């Protein structure tokens, strides 16, 4: 219960970072925080129903649920792809405008 509340606070922290931080790099870091919070939540919930690693050796029973772990593998790799692509876009923005501050970028791009 308290673990879920801490993960909820981490999720809200990442969401607030995306909305309120002015630096583009801080926004991308907040995306990473949201990703981490969701991954930890799934693995935590899946581990409540058992107490063994899901590798079927001889005489192992009551393993942890392996389905959330398999889903989170894909999620972690996709998270790093999103981070790399968004950092490439931020680099392009810096080369075009010379700053990471979103207000100055908005002035320079002109809208």
């Amino acid at each position, binding site marked *: 219960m308290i673990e879920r509340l801490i993960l909820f606070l981490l999720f809200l922290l990442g969401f607030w970072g995306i909305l309120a*931080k002015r630096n583009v790099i801080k926004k991308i*870091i907040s995306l990473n925080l949201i990703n981490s919070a969701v991954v930890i939540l799934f693995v935590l919930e899946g581990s409540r129903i058992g107490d063994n690693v899901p590798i079927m050796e001889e005489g192992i029973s009551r393993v942890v649920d392996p389905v959330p*772990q398999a889903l989170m593998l894909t999620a972690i790799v996709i998270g790093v792809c999103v981070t790399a692509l968004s950092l490439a876009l*931020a680099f392009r923005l810096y080369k075009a405008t010379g700053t990471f501050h979103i207000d100055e970028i908005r002035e320079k791009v002109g809208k």
Partner: protein
Amino acid sequence: MTVILLLLILGLGIYTLFSRDLLHGVIALSALSLLSAMLFYILHAPDVAITEAAVGAGVTTIIFVWIIRHTERKDRC
């Protein structure tokens, strides 16, 4: 044990967002990834732990340090 690790993760997350130096924030993000890899091992999930350790504390830190090195390091905002 999981509660202690989760509280440390939350503290590192707060420091990452509020630090004035971007490189310090990225190092805190790498430490957050390391702590969550330890948490995955405690929760009986070794596959996720290997992936998170190699991805979070390896590849993500490399690409963040790359962009800080080629642009600017202080958070002027």
